[in-house]
């Protein structure tokens, strides 16, 4: 930087060190980045509590948010996702950007009353989203 014009005018305003991560975040990750959100529902809201005895509350969770442009290291996204992003940005914006979707699930145990009055305990696969990804 020696002797190159007025130092102040040239160099970008660099924030003081304590909110450096905030400063960089604006370049790398969108404000509302793709991540997991809670949605707690009780089966009585769906009028299913006459046959689902347990659990009382069920949180299936969901994925929401924008997919950042540099996907690879953060979401384990395949290279195709970056290609789709480039197509959207450089070639044809009618092609959708990568979407924020669940990548992993966990099972749910349900206790139900059957129509014949018998009682069933069952474990269902893929009922709670546990991780998000961009695809």
């Amino acid at each position: 930087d020696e002797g190159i014009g007025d130092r102040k005018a040239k160099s970008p305003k660099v924030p003081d060190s304590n909110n450096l991560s905030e400063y960089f975040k604006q370049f790398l990750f969108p404000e509302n980045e793709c991540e997991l959100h809670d949605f707690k529902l009780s089966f009585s809201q769906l009028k299913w509590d006459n046959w689902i005895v347990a659990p009382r509350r069920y949180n299936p969770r969901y994925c929401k948010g924008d997919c950042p442009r540099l996907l690879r290291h953060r979401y384990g996204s395949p290279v195709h996702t970056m290609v789709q992003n480039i197509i959207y940005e450089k070639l044809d914006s009618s092609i959708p950007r990568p979407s924020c979707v669940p990548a992993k699930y966990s099972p749910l145990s349900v206790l139900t009353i059957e129509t014949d009055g018998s009682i069933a305990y069952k474990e269902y696969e893929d009922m709670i989203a546990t991780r998000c990804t961009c695809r």
Partner: protein
Amino acid sequence: SQTLEDEAGSLISGEASLEAKPQPWDQPLDGENSPDLLPPLLKVLVNSHVPGAPRLQPDSIALRYMKRLYKAYATKEGIPKSDRGHLYNTVRLFTPSAQHQQSSWGQVTGVLQSMDLLFNLDRIAAPEHLLKSVLLYSLKNSVSFSSATKCMCYLDVKEPECSSSPCFRSPQSFTFNLQFEFRKNHKWIEKDVTTLLQPLVASNKRNIHIAVNFTCYKDQPNPVQDELFDVAILMAPSLLVYLNDTSAQAYHRWDSLRYKGSHQLLPDQRDPMEEELIWGRKSSRHRR
């Protein structure tokens, strides 16, 4: 949820623009052999168009037992606890649809009691394979025995007499006797009847007739307790079946264990194909 149900309804009636190929929900939903492709929760969405199917109320004591089982098997959020080593992902409790019982009371031998129970197991779906089944006796809280009380129980499990024309097969009946003890403060007594039920459920018999005769006697006769004792064992047993649901939407603990790395599995739990592969590789290495 209204729009959601409408959408589900239009999907079912085929109004929505779907590809030509038949969709899973085109199958008859309630047919006995219909592949259970729709997760039961979605099925409720579909069926909620028709006025909710009437539901018989379960036995309150049975419901209390199943809630206790649920707490033992799942967390408050409903996540199956991973510390369970067995492979069943479904437990069904049936109360007898018809029962006839009579008991006589002998001063010397205690109570002799016989019950005729009919269980309808239609809710056991085709992909559900029986792993274990028990007769579940519940004792009233008020009863507590000063001494261990022994019972000899004779079970007769048969297919109900066939109602149609001459039976092609004489009704199968298995008799075996059980010895069990009512102990102090026991609320539930479970007796394993897997060997009896397995052949019937495997051959798709869904109406099971169980005749139970048991005699209970106590170490020292004590008139005061007799009426308590008599009441205690009048409760008709429920039938508990532990099943492995092999359908796609059921949770297969076995799969998740395997994903965690087959080396953690006990040798006998490993997939036989995998076993062969491993041994095959080792033996070829030795030969080399």
